[in-house]
Every structure is written in C-alpha cells, then in structure tokens.
C-alpha cells in the first residue's frame, strides 16, 4: 500500500514556503474553476462507465440470464426491455439521461432499483468508515506529532516502524487475523467479539441495541483504523519536521515559550494543513479499504453491496455503485482543493 504515500507528496510540497507576499486574488474564481474541473471529471466517469460496461465479453442479455433457459423470443423481449436493440448512440443518450435523473437501473439480483439498494446500505458504511476515519486521523495526528517533535527518538523509530509494517499488510489479512483472534478465538481461549453483520439476531431495543451495534463495530473499525492511520502519521510527521526548522519556531523559542507551547500553538497548527487535505484526498483509499473490511465482516454497507455485485455478477448494480463511489470521491477531492486554498495563504499566492 505504498502508492498513497507517493501521491501525497505533491500536496506536501505545494505547501513549501513562498517568497512573495500573498496576493488575495480570486478565491471564488479558483473555487469555480475547481468545480468546473470536477463536473468535467464526473461527466468523464459517466461516459467511461458506459463504454467500459459495454466491453463486456458476450451478449449482455445472455450474461444476465446466466444459463437460464430462455427462448429466442424471450431474449428479444428482454433485449427490447433493456433498450439493447437500439443503436449504440441512442443507448448512450438514454444512459446519460437516466443517470442524470438518478435512475441507475434495476438490480438483476435483487429485482429492485439500484438507487434504493444504495440508499439502504449507505448508512452503515458512513457509520463504519466515518468512525474509522475520525479515529485514524486523531491517532495519526497525535502519534505523528509526538514522533516528529522528538525526531529520531525511540518513539519516532517505533512509530515509523509500525506504520511501515501496517503499510505493507493487506487489509483483508489483518481483518482475518483479528477475526480469528478476537472473534473466533484460538484453542481454549474463546472469542469475545462478534464478527458477523451489524447487529445480533435477537437484537434488543433502545440503549442495549446501540451497545450491540457498537460491539459489532469494534473489529471492522479496528481493521480499518490499523490500515489507514499509518499514512496520516507519516504525513503529519514529515510536515512537522518541515515546520521545526522554520524561523518562526526559533522566534517562538527565543521568546521563551515552553517547548510544549511552541509545539501546540505554533508548529502543529501549520503542520496540520497537509494532513487535513490528505483526509479528503485519500478518501478513495478509505473506500477501497471499506470494500474489503465490509466483505470480511459481512457488514451490510455499500462496500459489501459492491462486492456482491462483483461475485454474482450483477452488472447494473456494479455500474451504479461504481459511479456513486467515484463521484463521491471526486466531490471530496474538489472540497479538499478548495478548503486547502482557503486555509493556506501560501498556496493562494502561487
């Protein structure tokens, strides 16, 4: 899982010190151009989805039928119903029109509109990924700050080592291990935590229900945090290292501030910027993690829905969830650009 680190580099470097005085010029203009770019990207996603899903080897109707016995007349009827007897260009405009109206088609597996299915599954994913993200970012920032401030110390070496290991661990394997140790139990030691689904079969009501869901969330959440927090740690650490050698830190020390205050009031707020952006920038990585984690722990979220679409395979569902996930990621990235621009005057001047 090394790619995210490289990709994060430009953002960090972009925050390099600018010599010129910051010019307050056209934040709105900048935001508009970013939004324009995002709309273009979203349009490209829709177009690409259409063509990629038409690359399917074989006849889509036969793929859908999956070996069920259908007469040629039935096949034709099905083809007509799906609009596959029209010319490609008409199919394309139908597809674009439907997508823009948020009509993502009907799932073959569930016989229900894809949008409804997504609506049902989005809550658990937001709960799991959101909780995981908050914990991962807090933990990463805290540990990264400590490691970077005592750079080269024992805690620093320990942190860098741990994050390198976690970086190299495949998410699903870590999930399997945690499930085996804490869910199933090894030998005489019984498992203590539930590892299937979001609630028990005989789930109680009220407050006890919340506890039930929370206990189901521990293992999936732990897996997600373990895999994604390393990148926040490493970026926080390296951006803090850049700040430590800046003049204003020396000034703060010269003023006689305590070490703790220099860190909390001066260095950390500046070093936080790249990390905050990273939270939005790497949301696609979090989504990828969510797919595997939800699959292992049968968490009834969007990631698991996407996984089901792949194994069945249910192409309408796959296409719908893919577009939704991608568009959400594009929106998050655009937000990151705009927020970064607002927060950091050095980028604004560039």
């Amino acid at each position, binding site marked *: 899982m090394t790619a995210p680190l490289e990709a994060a580099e430009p953002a960090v470097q972009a925050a390099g010190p600018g010599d010129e005085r910051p010019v307050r010029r056209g934040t709105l203009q900048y935001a508009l151009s970013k939004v324009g770019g995002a709309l273009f990207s979203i349009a490209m996603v829709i177009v690409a989805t259409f063509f990629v899903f038409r690359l399917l080897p074989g006849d889509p109707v036969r793929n859908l039928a999956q070996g069920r016995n259908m007469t040629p007349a039935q096949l034709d009827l099905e083809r007509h119903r799906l609009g596959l007897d029209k010319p490609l260009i008409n199919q394309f405009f139908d597809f674009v029109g439907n997508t823009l109206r948020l009509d993502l088609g009907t799932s073959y597996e569930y016989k229900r509109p894809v949008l409804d299915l997504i609506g049902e599954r989005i809550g658990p994913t937001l709960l799991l990924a959101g909780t995981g993200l908050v914990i991962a970012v807090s933990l990463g920032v805290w540990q990264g700050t400590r490691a970077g401030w005592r750079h080269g110390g024992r805690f620093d070496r320990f942190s860098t080592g741990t994050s390198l290991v976690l970086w*190299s661990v495949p998410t699903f394997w870590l999930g399997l291990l945690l499930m085996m140790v804490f869910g199933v139990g*090894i030998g005489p030691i019984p498992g203590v935590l539930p590892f299937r689904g979001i609630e028990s079969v005989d789930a109680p009501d009220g407050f006890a229900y919340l506890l039930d869901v929370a206990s189901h969330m521990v293992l999936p959440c732990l897996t997600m945090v373990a895999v994604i927090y390393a990148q926040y740690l490493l970026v926080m650490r*390296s951006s803090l290292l850049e700040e430590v050698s800046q003049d204003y830190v020396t000034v703060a020390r010269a003023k006689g501030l305590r070490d703790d205050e220099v860190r909390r009031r001066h260095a950390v707020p500046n070093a936080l910027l790249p990390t905050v952006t990273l939270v939005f920038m790497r949301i696609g990585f979090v989504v990828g993690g969510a797919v*595997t984690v939800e699959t292992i722990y049968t968490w009834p979220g969007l990631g698991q829905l996407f*996984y089901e679409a*792949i194994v069945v395979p249910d192409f309408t569902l796959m296409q719908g969830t893919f577009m939704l996930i*991608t568009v959400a990621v594009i929106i998050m990235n655009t937000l990151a650009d705009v927020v970064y621009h607002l927060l950091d005057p050095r980028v604004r001047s560039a």
Partner: protein
Amino acid sequence: MTSVAAARRRQALSRFWADFRRHRAGLAGLVVLVAAVLLAVFAPLFIDDSVTSVVDAPGEEWSGPSLAFPFGTDESGRSILLMVWWGSRTSLLIGFLAALVSIVIGMVVGIAAGHFRGWLSAVLMRVTDWFLVLPSMVTALVLAAILGGSTFTIIMAIGITTWPSTARLLRAQTLAVEARPYIERSKALGGGHWHITTRHVLPNVAPLLLASTTLEVASAIVTESTLAFLGVSSNKTSWGTMLRGSYDYGAATQGAWWYILIPGLAILVVVMAFTLVGRALEAVLNPRLRKAT
C-alpha cells in the same frame, strides 16, 4: 559511448552502491527480495504444479504444523509450505509485470507532459488527474470483474489504475531537467524531441524510476492479493487465492491458524522488503528526503 563517459558512469554507480549500503534496513530488504526472487525462479527445479492438486494431496485435512508439513495442511490436505512457495511465482510475476505496465505508462505520459508544451501537456495532465482521483482499488475490481480474471487482465487492471502518481512525479522531474543549460545546448545543436527525451531526460530520471518501480511492485503485490481474495482472480494459486480459500473453507472456525497466518506473512515479508528497498533508494537519490528520514 566513449570510455570517459563509461568510466564516469561506473564511478557514479559505485558511489551510489556505497550510499545505498549505509541504509541497513534497505540492505536487509534487498537480501530478502533477492532470496524471494531466486526461490520463485528456481522453484520448478524442486516442485511442480502438482503441489496445488486436490486429487493426490499428500497429507491429512487441516493437520497442524508437523515435521512432514512444517506449516500444516489446508482443507484438502495440501502442504501450505509448498503451496506458498509455488504461489510466490504468480504473486511475484503479477507484482513485477503490473508495476512494469504502470511505470511504462506513467513514464511515457509524464515525460511527454513535461517535455511538450501547450495543449498536449494540458490534455495529458487532465487525463492523469482524472485517473489519479479514481478510487484505484474499486476501479481495478470493476475492470477485473468485467474483463475476466486471467493473469493478463489482473496485470492490466492494476497497471491502468496505478500509473498516475508516476506520471506526476516524472513530469515534475522532466521540467526540472529541461530547465538546465545543456538541454538548450543540445537543442541549439539540432537535437530533436526524441533525442532530448531519450538521451538527456530519461537517463536523468532513471534512478528515480527505479525507486518508484520498487515501491510500485510492493503495492501491486498487495493489490493482486486483495483482488484474488475478493474473488475476481482466476484460480491459479497465489498468496491471495490461498487466503481466499482459507476464508471460504472457514479456516478461522476450524482453528487452522497456520492456513491464514503463513500466506499473509509471505505477503507481508516480501512487500516490506520491496518497500524498504524503495525507501532506501529514494533516500539515496533525493537529498531533500535524506534530511527528513
């Protein structure tokens, strides 16, 4: 090439090796990496595809580690040790080839975007940014699911979704190299686009390419195992498909910890080795990073 240039290159190489040797972690990674590659390459001298056969599996089902089977057996009595060894061939092959595809696309797009100006550069960067923002794991899953999970499609799916970071890195490097005076001299002497990019830019960015290839192999191995685990890969034995099997046959509930632990450890060790080597290479090549680490 004149002998002066050859000597200079030899000298640079030995200086590079001296620098690299100072990174103990990188050196350890290199040793593991070379050992893993040698084991994978020479595996056919000792074992063959029969170690993955369910029909004449040598051992008892789900038996724990013993002298005959140091890492136990799986649901049909096959040796985990031999399967991990044989599976390393698929995992490493896909890792290397996917990294190669990714790096070659990234290199061509990055150097072109840095070398040419105007609309071509703008279009290339637009495309790069578009691919960069796509969630790579999700996209690779879709591509592999649609095109079928042969080794070739898995390689392409990983390559196509991971090249943009290389392209951005190389564009920045190309811009930096082309700002140097000797490029102007070369242009004045009549050097064309091909000459400048292949004779001046490429040799300058080659070391950095090596570092990012190493890191790319690491992430490609992890991605391959994830794709295989999620069931979009064909049935060829790799570390990912083995873990898939352990999940499908309920190794956790069977108490067969070795079935889950060993293939995953193989991934972890090899990926760590590549990551350590890649980071050491980066540190040697990039003095800006050398301070920080």
